[in-house]
């Protein structure tokens, strides 16, 4: 079959040594020799580092001088360098989508270190497959969408409030939606906070005041986002502003920042004394201390000694395995506040590891100086809380530092240092298609490179809905989400990858299977035959105009801006009516044939 392929293509093939990562196991010269006479291959070379400046320049020179119309680099994973080599193509005047990458490192040399000959044969097959696909590539242009100069921020805690102010100051409109009747979230309930000992309530009222000053920010409290339609740059969101009578308004936004925060862990009945009188959680204790009138009392009785039990609901094998990060610092901070109320109150911190990272270390030192005693308990022997015959509480714990003594600490109060858990927001998660991590928090694309973006374009996450954070870190991520939104929205247009699925309306019989397969909600039913895609910079289909030209036949249509090119809809279509640009059926078939060329021959 490959022999029948049109051979007028002029493809450049570059096989990379990757230092020795590839060439130590794969005979790169043999790979070059195997493909250099393939029909359609104009240039075939091996290079020490294709991604190096020298390598890139050599390829650019070849593209220009040899008038190449296709580019293949056989190197590492495309995840690493597809953008690099698309750039090479673009700079040399070649359409970037005429470039394909063959992964002969992760998928070949690294996995077959024990079989050099086999690795070489596999590399040849992989490169042949990619060449076969490249013969069928065609120039593609990025989709360009106009963006709405407004953003939706879900969550009116410290992150959402600060993000709203930042967004407005950049010149973008904001819809700020808070489910509770009041803005402020967790911080809005807090007393003095580290490091400046400013009251959390005061910080929030300052932010709320700033929000009120900005007419660009529309605040909806007691409201929820209930629907989302449209795609990146142009979302239509339904905000239910009141439940009784139900009233929903629609807002047009370009991006959505989710800053829905966290829930405090609620220990189960019996877990570390839960349910016993005098056993409370950290948020409850903070409220008690923040609201004290100078004397620390619980249920009317003075507290003279108390024990904190750390890692309640955090770092639990089989439960929440993550560290909630803020709790060690918060417990040490509240311990200092207690000492300020009455230095005679004896405080015992029963911990597993103290993780007062960064400046929070000062809290730990200060709490100890004030007389708080830290007791490290073994991971496999958590403290036991019990009520004594006298009716008072006693915590039993093993102390490593006194030679693994078992201590019995009589206390008036036990504070469970509870961590953060994800909020239960199933409806919103389903509506926004937010990806969840294993821990139940929302997942970013990449923790370092794309820390606030999600797999859904234009939907960003910030603050503790993403995972446990301090309030400072939450605000920082909120502002990162603002910048990330603004960088697209302020340009007015957004470029989207053209590698999206398309429906052939002549073949489509509307069975609806693709709609169910699409995780992004990008497929809709329309009663029209869609016009064929135009070449050049394109706008998303004007569905309304198409609808006017309807001839009554129901077919599926895929929003180019909404489609992520995952390909999930392609195999479910019983009519084979869907094709994925850049990975068309023909291209994939050619690739398989190329891969199996030797076997077939």
């Amino acid at each position, binding site marked *: 079959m490959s022999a029948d392929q049109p051979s007028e293509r002029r493809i450049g093939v570059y096989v990379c040594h990757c230092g020795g990562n590839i060439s130590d196991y794969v005979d790169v010269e043999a790979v070059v020799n195997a493909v250099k006479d393939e029909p359609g291959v104009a240039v075939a070379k091996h290079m020490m580092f294709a991604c190096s400046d020298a390598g890139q320049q050599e390829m650019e020179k070849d593209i220009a001088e040899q008038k190449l119309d296709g580019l293949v680099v056989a190197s590492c994973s495309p995840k690493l360098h597809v953008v690099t080599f698309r750039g090479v193509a673009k700079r040399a005047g070649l359409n970037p989508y005429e470039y394909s990458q063959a992964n002969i490192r992760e998928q070949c040399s690294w996995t077959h270190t024990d079989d050099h000959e086999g690795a070489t044969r596999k590399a040849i097959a992989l490169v042949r497959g990619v060449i076969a696909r490249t013969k069928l590539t065609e120039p593609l242009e990025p989709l360009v969408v106009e963006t709405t100069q407004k953003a939706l921020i879900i969550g009116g805690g410290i992150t959402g409030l600060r993000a709203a102010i930042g967004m407005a100051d950049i010149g973008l409109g904001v819809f700020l939606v808070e489910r509770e009747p009041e803005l402020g979230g967790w911080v809005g309930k807090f007393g003095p906070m580290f490091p400046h000992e400013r009251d959390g309530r005061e910080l929030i009222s300052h932010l709320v005041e700033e929000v009120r000053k900005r007419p660009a920010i529309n605040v909806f409290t007691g409201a929820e986002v209930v629907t989302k339609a449209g795609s990146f740059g142009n979302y239509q969101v339904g905000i239910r502003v009141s439940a009784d009578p139900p009233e929903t308004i629609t807002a047009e936004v370009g991006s959505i920042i989710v800053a829905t925060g966290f829930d405090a862990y609620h220990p189960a009945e019996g877990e570390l004394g839960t349910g016993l009188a005098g056993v409370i959680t950290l948020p409850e204790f903070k409220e008690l201390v923040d609201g004290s009138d100078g004397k620390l009392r619980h249920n009317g009785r003075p507290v003279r000694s108390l024990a904190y039990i750390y890692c309640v609901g955090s770092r639990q094998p089989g439960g929440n395995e993550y560290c909630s990060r803020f709790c060690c610092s918060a417990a040490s901070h509240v311990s200092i506040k207690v000492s300020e109320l009455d230095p005679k109150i004896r405080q015992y911190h029963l911990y597993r590891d103290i993780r007062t990272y960064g400046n929070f270390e000062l809290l730990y030192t200060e709490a*100890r100086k004030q*007389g708080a005693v830290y007791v490290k308990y073994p991971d496999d022997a958590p403290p036991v809380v019990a009520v004594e015959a006298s009716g008072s509480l006693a915590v039993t714990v093993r102390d490593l530092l*006194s*030679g693994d*003594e*078992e*201590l019995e600490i*009589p206390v008036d109060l036990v504070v469970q240092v509870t961590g953060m858990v994800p909020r239960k927001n199933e409806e919103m998660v389903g509506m926004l298609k937010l990806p969840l991590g294993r821990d139940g928090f929302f997942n970013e694309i990449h923790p370092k490179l794309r820390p606030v973006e999600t797999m859904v374009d234009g939907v960003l996450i910030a603050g503790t809905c993403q995972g446990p954070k301090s309030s400072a870190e939450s605000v920082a991520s909120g502002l990162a989400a603002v910048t990330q939104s603004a960088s697209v929205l302020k340009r007015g247009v957004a470029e989207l990858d053209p590698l999206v699925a398309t429906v052939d309306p002549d073949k489509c019989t509307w069975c609806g299977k693709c709609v169910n397969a699409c995780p992004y909600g990008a497929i809709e039913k329309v009663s029209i035959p869609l016009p064929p895609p135009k070449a050049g910079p394109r706008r998303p289909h004007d569905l309304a105009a198409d609808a006017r030209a309807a001839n009554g036949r129901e077919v599926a249509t895929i929003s180019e801006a909404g489609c992520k090119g995952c390909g999930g809809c392609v195999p479910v279509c019983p009519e084979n009516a869907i094709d994925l640009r850049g990975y068309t059926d023909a291209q994939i078939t050619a690739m398989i044939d190329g891969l199996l060329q030797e076997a077939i021959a």
Partner: protein
Amino acid sequence: MTARVDRNLYPELQRFGANDISACFNCGVCSAICPLSVDGASFPRRMSRYAQLGLREKLLASPELWSCYGCSECTDSCPTKADPASFMAAARRYAVASYDRTHLAYLLATSRLFAVVFVVALVSLLAAFMYNSHRPVDGSSLAFFEFIPSAVIHNLGIATMAVMGVAALVGVFEMFRRVLRGPAAHGAGPSGAALGGAKATIRKAAIRKAAIRKAADAAFYAVGTESLAQTRFRKDCADAGAAGAANAAETRPWYSQRWFIHFATMWGFLGLLGATMADYGLELLGIKATGTAVPIWYPVRLLGTLAGAALIYGTSVLIVRRLRKSDRSSVHSTTSDWTFLTMLWVAGVTGFALELALYLPSAPAWGYPMFLVHVAVAMALVLLVPFGKFAHVLYRPLALFAIRLRG
């Protein structure tokens, strides 16, 4: 056995002068740097942990408190400035107060006002009691035992010794009860197990010769090697030079090193005690009446003179160092320190003055009052042995004995 945490221990220890120990995070640098904390011992660190947690019985059952000679090298090395040396001293004061059942030691250590009033009152009372039985004397020469009948002084002295002895026995019993039978003996911790071992060793000592030899060795070590010879204080303890000075032991002559000052004070006191006892013995044997003038080379007088000189030298240096805060180990002085040192010094200086007065050509007017002060202070000093800093003479050898026995 679970150790019960007592939230009141820590504030109580603060009353005894453990002011900075809350800063301790139990890193163990103090134990690592301590030249005496070896062979698996972990003081001051573990003692500090007991104090922080409020493990009262564990602390009081720790003979290691008495292993420390207070060189303060740990305080110099402490990364959190928790001053472990001062803590150890405070814990010893606390232990003395806890082993005493009368509460007197507690008040003497925690209230400066009480200590001053009590000591002055005690000395005055003793002096008044003796003066009450004084007889007229002619002023030509000093005759102390004509002035106050020697029987009064001797009987009062014996009574003082008896009272002190009872209190000391009670204290020693209390200490041993805790060290051997306290919760530590049943505890799972290493110290508990070791102490349990010590207890077992003592039991076996009754039936096994080897164990008897071991106990004898421990006793010889505790009383002889460590206490009387000051071997470890001399050889192992880093000498405390000027506060912060490095390697002070090399720059300081032997006669001004800490061990020697203590050595001189201790042997000075023991010498004077011996001379006094011998003098009384000579009277009992009818060889020489107490208070009779004898030549300087007369053995009892010679011993008394030399011992007195040593005592005055030792206590004077100690007082000067505490006043100047010149040594890192004399930066912090407490009521206990001052009470003990002052009484020792006064007893020594008045004793010397009396000897001087006795051999002056004509009797000075201050001779008899000085005599009263000397005897009263000396008796008060003896009476207060189990109640103040002097108690280390009881508890330290015992603790060292227990530790040695433990092996």
